[in-house]
């Protein structure tokens, strides 16, 4: 499972970096999204990978070893929300740039 997750993060991050370095704004925004997915999975992995363990502690006598770390899950949730908002904002800027310059090149002119 560690191997699968590590591969997934690696592939997502590599594709993201490649696309961010492309000259078209659409490729850049897809790249940024992939990059943020990779980062989100990475944060989750940093809380140790556990199968079949709940992050929420219920009442009664509790053995912490039965539960997974809830903090990274909270962090991922925040990061997803912020990343989503920023992607939406970038989409608006992208469309404005496309409308003003008539080109979807990141510099506004074809090279």
């Amino acid at each position, binding site marked *: 499972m560690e191997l699968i997750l590590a591969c997934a993060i690696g592939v997502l991050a590599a594709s993201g970096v490649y696309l*961010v370095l492309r000259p078209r*704004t659409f490729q*850049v925004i897809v790249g*940024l999204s992939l*990059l*943020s997915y990779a*980062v989100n999975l*990475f*944060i989750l992995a*940093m*809380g140790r990978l556990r199968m079949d363990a709940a992050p929420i502690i219920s009442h009664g006598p509790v053995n912490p070893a039965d539960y997974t770390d809830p*903090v*990274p899950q909270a*962090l991922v949730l*925040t*990061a997803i929300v*912020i*990343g989503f*908002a*920023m*992607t939406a*904002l*970038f989409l608006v*800027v*992208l469309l*404005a*740039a496309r409308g*003003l*310059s008539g080109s979807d090149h*990141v*510099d*506004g002119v074809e090279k």
Partner: protein
Amino acid sequence: MDQMQHIAILPILVPFAAVIVNVIFGDHGKSTVRFNVLFSVVQLAVAVMLFLVLASHEASAMAVYPLGNWPVPFGIVLVADRLASVMVLVTAILALAALIFASARWNRNGSNFFPLFHALVMGLSGAFLTGDLFNLFVFFELLLAASYGLVLHGGGRNRVRSAMHYVVINLVASSLFLIGVALIYATTGTLNMADIARVIPRIAPQDRGLFDVGAAVLSVAFLIKAGAWPLHFWLPGTYSSASPPVAALFAIMTKVGFYALLRFWTLAFSYSAGPEFSLGQTMMFMAGVATVAYGSIGALASKALDRLATYVILVSAGTLLLAVSYNAPGVTAGALYYVVVATLAAGALFLLKDVIDQTLPSEAQILAVSLELYGDEDEEIDEDQEVSPTVPAAATLLSWCFAIIALVMAGLPPLSGFLAKFSMIGAALNAGETPSAAAWWFTGAIVVSGLFVLIAMVRNGINIFWTSLPDGAVRVRVLEVTPIVGLLVLCILMAVAAGPAMAYLGETAQFLHASDGYVLSVLGTGGAS
């Protein structure tokens, strides 16, 4: 200290209230302007109060505010120590000046100027006050989101293009920030900065490398914000195309990177400074020298005043980076003095540039530099015209402001820029028995960059002010000149009151570098340790 801890959250709540009021009531012309200025004045009053409360106690006094009263390492905590209070105060001063300036005409150039402006102030204050690493990320995103909107304020092809680059760079930087935070959480098991400092010596040796990688990635994210070479290429385009009051407030944005680096490095590596620490120091030092060099050459090469201002910002960012990498209390004290003075002067320069643009069209300024290169063909015709013996009062005022900014930025006596650089150099040279090679590099970088900035400023000043003025009286708006004069008066006051200010910031720096006090105060209040 128990009663005063609540004051730590006020600098965040006041701009937050301003954002809400603006969103609910919308824009109604003059009355909106008035209550927005009022909010900014209240913010300044709160910042002054925080500053005075902390100044009236000993240097180790801090206002620690656990949000929701959760026990400290688990909940988010706001920490107002002297460093944070000084930064919040500078932010509030700069924000008030920029807001008054903007209310003369810039706020009407686009929609939602005021809510975004207050949101940026809120993000800045929050970033300075928070004691939690992930909360720092949230406040960074908040101030960045507001800054994206503000960069776009006014619209136009140039602004949209540079805003797009700015957004992409900062989104990538945010990803790096998150990776760094995640790695640090994985190895220390906490996000509270004081708790991280406490836990670091107990990290298992096999995890230590992972922590160092996390710290390095996080520092790269901070360096992007601080505008360090080679991560600064977004900066000149963004700052010079942003509308002037926004650019003036952005003068403190690079200082957020400086603040975060200073806070994180003094905390994280105070207990265990291993070889990786000195490696990081060396890298930062080299980046600082490169930033100063790039900024100085850029300042010499820039034809227009707005480009010049952005490169001056780069020079000051590089100088601060050098000071952080030096990691000596004396140098840090000088750097804190410098950060106050340089921020105020850079803000004033961006505002002044706009006033000059109104009295003298920017094409004429660029033309003046081009004429220098290609020869002035109109020279003989000019002799026929009668030269007016007097200079209009408004032009005199503007040229005086320009001269003061040039003196502060270049670091010439008798103004505060000189005192700041002098104290940094003095502390660096006196740090060891004999001055190290790094101290000489440090001195050289600061002195040479001062010379370059001076040459660039003087050349621009000559082209702008020693020229035949356009026909008719030179008119400037009182609303636009007052903030500039106010900022510069503060710069001069900093020079007049250099003794007490330096002593205060010296104590602050001492406290910062002996981070036991910080860690104990933060963790002590929560009960858990």
